[in-house]
């Protein structure tokens, strides 16, 4: 499903975010990505959704070569992903409902389906009472859950979440990862960046640890194995 082959990414500022980064994630896996601040986790995610192009190496996601992908094809590729961004990326002038519905509208889904699906997903993340609120009128955790709802709403085969529980209390975080695990059981591949020890050890999933732009450990038993 996801294959990184000797990928390096150097930003225009000269920062080497990833070096010689190789990785393989199969269809249906649930992967935690951990690592210190600035290690390159978000860069890994940005490469996976083709927001950035690698400086070197090859990337395949959903069977597509992201390096060679035409610009016109990118939107259609992105619709096969559900991404929770670390900085949320909500559209400030759209309310919660419209922010979530937007991800469905871009795909030409029928309006009736949108009207049924969006409230269902908002309920799932505990935001049923906030659907008319603008992002600026939400708490940090509420905004994060809108971002999560938007990633889930299209039922994509691959969900990528960059610290989706950073602003959310432990109980709710646990519920969210539990929800993701349920979705994963139905065959959806999930890649989740997180800093929370407790979550990683409580759920027995594969853990990839990134440090200074490279994979330093890759463990299938749900344990950190720092140096």
């Amino acid at each position, binding site marked *: 499903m996801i294959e990184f082959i000797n990928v390096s990414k150097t930003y225009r500022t000269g920062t080497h975010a990833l070096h010689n980064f190789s990785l393989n994630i199969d269809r249906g896996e649930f992967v935690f990505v951990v690592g210190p601040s600035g290690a390159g986790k978000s860069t890994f995610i940005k490469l996976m*959704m083709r*927001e950035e192009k690698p400086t070197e190496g090859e990337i395949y996601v959903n069977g597509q070569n992201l390096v060679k992908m035409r*610009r016109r094809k990118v*939107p*259609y*590729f*992105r*619709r096969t*992903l559900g*991404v929770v*961004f670390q900085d949320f*990326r*909500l*559209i*400030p*002038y759209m309310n919660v409902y419209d922010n979530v519905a*937007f*991800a469905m*509208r*871009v*795909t*030409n889904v*029928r*309006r009736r389906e949108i009207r049924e699906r969006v409230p269902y997903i908002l309920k799932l993340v505990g935001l049923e009472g906030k659907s008319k609120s603008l992002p600026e009128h939400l708490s940090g955790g509420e905004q994060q859950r809108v971002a999560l709802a*938007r990633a889930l709403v299209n039922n994509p085969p691959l969900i990528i979440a960059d610290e989706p529980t950073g602003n959310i209390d432990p109980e709710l975080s646990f519920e969210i990862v539990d929800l993701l695990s349920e979705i994963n059981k139905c065959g959806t591949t999930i890649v989740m960046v997180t800093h929370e020890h407790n979550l990683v050890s409580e759920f027995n999933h594969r853990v990839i640890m990134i440090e200074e732009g490279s994979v330093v450990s890759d463990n299938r038993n749900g344990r950190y194995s720092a140096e």
Partner: protein
Amino acid sequence: MSFGSFMYLFKEGFKNVWVNRLMSFASIGTLMACMLLIGGSLLLSLNVNTIIGSVEQQNEAVVYPNDEITDEEIRELDTQISLIENVTDVIFIDKDQLLAETMAKGDELAKAMEGLPLGEDNPLQNTFRLRLKDQALAVETKSELESLDHVAEVYIQLDLAETITSIKRAVSLSGFTIVAILVVVSLVIIANTIKVTVFNRRKEINIMKSVGATSAFIRMPFLIEGFFIGLMSALMAFGLLWLGYNYIMLAISTSRTGWIKTAYENMLTFRQIALQMFIYFSAGGIGIGVFGSMFFMNKYLKV
């Protein structure tokens, strides 16, 4: 794009006019202001041109027939002169009439005419007075008149004709130049406004891209927004110009000064140009609104 999502994007664009109202108002204000300037100067130059056109015909030409011409031949010559393309308002004035006219003016020469005899002994000459439609053709018309039978002499103020022609050319040239400058300046201003308003929304464009929206999908609401902003600006500019123009016309029509009255009679009424102006305004406003935002969005769509 399905009909459903077209309708959604249409509504979205309409809503955005209000959601981004600070910027919409700024754009409408700017667009409207520019249209007012262009429309105003267009009206001014159109009117100046028609007024100049009416002044043009003030240059009289004079044709002296032979002394031996008979009354019959005078009528014939009159017809022939009238048949010349560039000639209008032909009047025959016999020499007694001319004398009376000149005396009535009461200027320097009037004194000299005192006591001149009427009838056969009148030293003045029979005269055809006429006007030229186009002063630029004065020379050609002069030789055409000279080639007629029984014509002794043709008197046309060629230097005045040339002056009038060049004034006319200068006025319409500068009118055109002014309108052209205003159009260019307006485009600069409007381009800057659109650039800034699109720049303002680069983040949202980026977010839409990152959840899988195609460029066309993102553009649509901007397009609709540009359409409405352009249309509203055109409507408001048109309305204001109408009010302003009629107000000025009213002010002028009550003037007692002679030349202003004459000018007033030659001025265009707003109705005469309203439809055309409205079409230009709407087309311009909508065109600029739509293509301007398309153009400046491209940069942010390449993500």
